[in-house]
């Protein structure tokens, strides 16, 4: 079991109603597992809106790449400040930041 921390910003923070939360995840769980299972499971009433907001979909179906990984919209996801792909395994103490497209200025 590993404990990770997730930070949300902008419209994602507003959707989930939380800025920071912690998850206890199984060893070997990936970033995709976090986004597809752990977060939607905790925020069941918002799980569809969550997936709609961050993943590319066509006619309600989630688009996947050659590795069967979902494709993100223009979101940047950082693990400990570094850009990460969805296959990356998470480890104890990781801090994940989920960043919507910028809107400053």
């Amino acid at each position, binding site marked *: 079991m590993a404990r990770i921390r997730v*930070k949300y*910003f*902008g*419209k994602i*923070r*507003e959707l989930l109603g939380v800025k920071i939360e912690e998850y206890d995840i199984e060893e070997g769980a990936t970033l995709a597992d976090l986004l597809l299972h752990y977060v939607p499971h905790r925020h069941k009433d918002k799980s569809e809106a969550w997936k709609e907001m961050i993943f590319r979909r066509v006619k309600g179906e989630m688009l996947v790449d050659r590795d069967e990984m979902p494709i993100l919209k*223009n979101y*940047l996801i*950082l693990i400990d*400040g570094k850009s990460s792909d969805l296959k990356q395994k998470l480890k104890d103490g990781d801090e994940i*930041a989920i*960043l*919507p*497209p*910028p*809107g*400053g*200025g």
Partner: protein
Amino acid sequence: MKISHNLDDIETLIEELKRLADEVGAITIFIGVVRGKRNDEKVLRLEYEAYEELASKVAEKIIEDAKTKYGIIDACIQHRIGTVKVGGDVMYVLVASKHRAEAFQALSEIVERIKQELPIWKKEVTEKGAYWVENI
């Protein structure tokens, strides 16, 4: 670089840049202001939030890149977070250089990169609703 609920006095920022070097011959300034209209809707306010630790790093990189590319002497970026009313100043970008040409070019590029890259988010609250604005 500063991300805060308040911007510094712009005259002070200008003086700080002038004092950096005897070679400063031009300072260009961009001031972002809250517009009072979104299409036909009256805007009430903007609400900003930032990933502050990352935003500072990104802004420093943008300034360093501009120094390398345009040979400017230095630049300063300040951006508000929190609620900003219509007519309020949201962002200051100042560029100091030897000559005006590179100061104008660098200013334009820095502002564009801030809008595309800085992890700052904006909700526009109008009389009809609220909208997250994305710069893409």
